[in-house]
């Protein structure tokens, strides 16, 4: 069925209000819109790694989830959902369950790129029929903005603070979508909140309804950690895509597809200057840092274009 924005918005809400995420949080915007990929009437079990999302959406006795939900621990969201999906297969095989269920797990970048990486990798390699969604805000926000392997270079975090001898995080961020794509699973995609969510909605539905393992990497800005004005989130996401910092792509059965190419690729400053975590880059004498950042964005963009041209 062709995509229709209004119909997608008309679907029942699957994340209830009353959760305790910060005002303006990108994480719950990601969750709400991913869950709109589910067809009406289909049941789902939602998994969750420990993080902001978990402690805020299931604070006893208040659950914000309209579907069945399981949080286990920080590093094992992939394995936990493997077990849930395994139970589904077994109960189906034994004739104990008629209904169709879909399995969707959410983790922040810390729980996905770092501590939960092994568990995620295992779940993907075993090709469980599940979607793992990383809402990537580029740091351990729940514990107070510590760097993760998803944190971009030069970001000022509480464990890579800017100082007289430091320009923020010294290393580049891990390209997790590419790492997961190397698992040769049926579907991998990267997206964020642009194009009125069309890209995100379509990819979510594909991920949920592709048999086997699927992975979605969603840039989900954090107003506190990135230090921008909360109402600006959509603009930040747009700039992430227009500067090619966060390209939109998918990998379907091993085939890389570029979903969007900016008509005019914007310089990376446009993305960086909106965010307090990169403020130091705009001090006089730090021009070379922005150049280095730009160089890395360019290199990755070219690499992606090459992959998608094959």
């Amino acid at each position, binding site marked *: 069925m062709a995509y229709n924005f209004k119909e997608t918005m008309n679907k029942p809400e699957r994340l209830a209000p009353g959760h305790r995420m910060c005002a303006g949080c990108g994480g719950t915007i990601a969750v709400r819109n991913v869950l709109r990929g589910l067809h009406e009437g289909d049941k789902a079990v939602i998994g969750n790694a420990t993080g902001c999302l978990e402690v805020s959406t299931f604070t006893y006795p208040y659950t914000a989830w309209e579907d069945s939900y399981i949080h286990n621990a920080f590093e094992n969201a992939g394995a936990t959902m493997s077990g849930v999906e395994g139970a589904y297969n077994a109960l189906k095989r034994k004739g104990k369950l008629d209904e169709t269920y879909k399995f969707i797990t959410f983790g922040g970048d810390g729980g996905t790129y770092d501590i939960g990486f*092994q568990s995620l990798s295992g779940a993907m390699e075993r090709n469980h029929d599940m979607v793992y969604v990383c809402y990537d805000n580029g740091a351990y926000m729940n514990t107070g903005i510590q760097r993760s392997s998803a944190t971009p270079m030069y970001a000022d975090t509480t464990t890579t603070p800017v100082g007289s001898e430091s320009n923020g995080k010294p290393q580049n961020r891990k390209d997790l979508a590419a790492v997961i794509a190397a698992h040769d699973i049926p579907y991998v995609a990267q997206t964020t909140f642009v194009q009125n969510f069309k890209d995100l909605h379509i990819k979510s539905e594909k991920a949920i309804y592709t048999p086997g393992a699927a992975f979605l990497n969603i840039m989900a800005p954090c107003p506190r950690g990135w230090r921008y004005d909360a109402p600006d989130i959509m603009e930040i996401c747009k700039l992430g895509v227009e500067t090619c910092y966060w390209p939109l792509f998918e990998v379907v059965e091993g085939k890389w597809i570029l979903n969007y190419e900016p008509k005019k690729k914007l310089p990376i400053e446009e993305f960086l200057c909106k965010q307090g975590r990169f403020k130091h880059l705009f001090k006089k004498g730090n021009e070379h840092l922005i150049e280095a950042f730009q160089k890395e964005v360019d290199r990755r963009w070219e690499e992606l274009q090459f992959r998608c041209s094959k």
Partner: protein
Amino acid sequence: MAKRERLSGNEAVAIALRQINPDVFPAFPITPSTEIPQYFSTFVANGQVDTEFIPVESEHSSMSATIGASAAGARALTATSSCGLAYMWEELYIAASNRLPLALALVNRALSGPININCDHSDSMGARDAGWIQIYAENNQEAYDNMVQAFRIAEHKDVRLPIMICQDGFITSHAVENIELLDDDTVKNFVGEYEPENYLLNPKETMAVGPYAITDYYMEAKRNQAEGMKHAVDVVKVIAKEFATISGREYGLFEEYRMEDAETAIVIIGSAAGTAKDAVDALREKGEKVGLIKIRLYRPFPADELAQALQNVKAVAIMDRAEGYTNHGGPLGADVMSALYRAKAQAFAVNYIYGLGGRDVRVEDIEGVFETLKQIVADGDAGETYRYLGVRE
């Protein structure tokens, strides 16, 4: 019809699992428990079970997946040893706190380091406060029988707690001994269908599990959890009684061996009880009033019943196959001594650390322990209560 066989402990447990036909079995190999999932995966490969076997990438994930499966409404278990159990440590607490009646077939092995693949109880003793029921076996028959009873205990509505079925690495898990197996239908009927009350895949009602609980709830949650453990003692007894009717084999919280008029006794867990029974027999032949208590249920700890069983003993040696690094002895020593203290017992008690990393324990070693106990009674003084057995010095 019961069937006589010759099997290793691992094979016996694997057969019990085939007969139980669980829904989900995530597993990761680690010596000496590897054979359990290995045997089981051949049952899967040959269509003898309906189980979803998930060969995960680590023990942390095997327990995580078992928790996911159990919460989803499946009868689920995993198997492991040693470092595998240590790696699951965090998850053990979560399984118990979620009140999930899942099972773990544990083949006891020493924890690293130094790395060692042989038996001691340092792995499961490290998990003793995790909120799991722990049941230990002396031999392959007991390992099998305990596994058959496991889900009945764990799933009981008054308990709903995870259960660890322990056997000694290599000594029990790999040694082939005679065993009497129940037939498949008898086990199937005994174990019954699993009908969880609340579960993720219940189409009638959604469920959320694993909340964040603020201080106002956390302590009450832990107290609530402790209630399940309180009920476990009676349930273990009830299930054992029912098991006796299908097997003719009787089990309790612990086994009392020649304790009737015993003046000295040892308290021990696991396979070394077999050796110790030989020592008891030999000394009884000589007219010594010695006896033995073999712990079956270690968590919850049957303190009152144990103190009762030891009430007429003048001296007791508590045998720990794990260090506690308290400078006073091991975990079993601490538990038994506190049981004796609370019962205002007059017996002298000493605590031996023995058998670490597979160190052999012989009949003569245990006879030596009884000799020491006899001397303690004669001296009216226990002397050093923290001792090592079988260490070169």
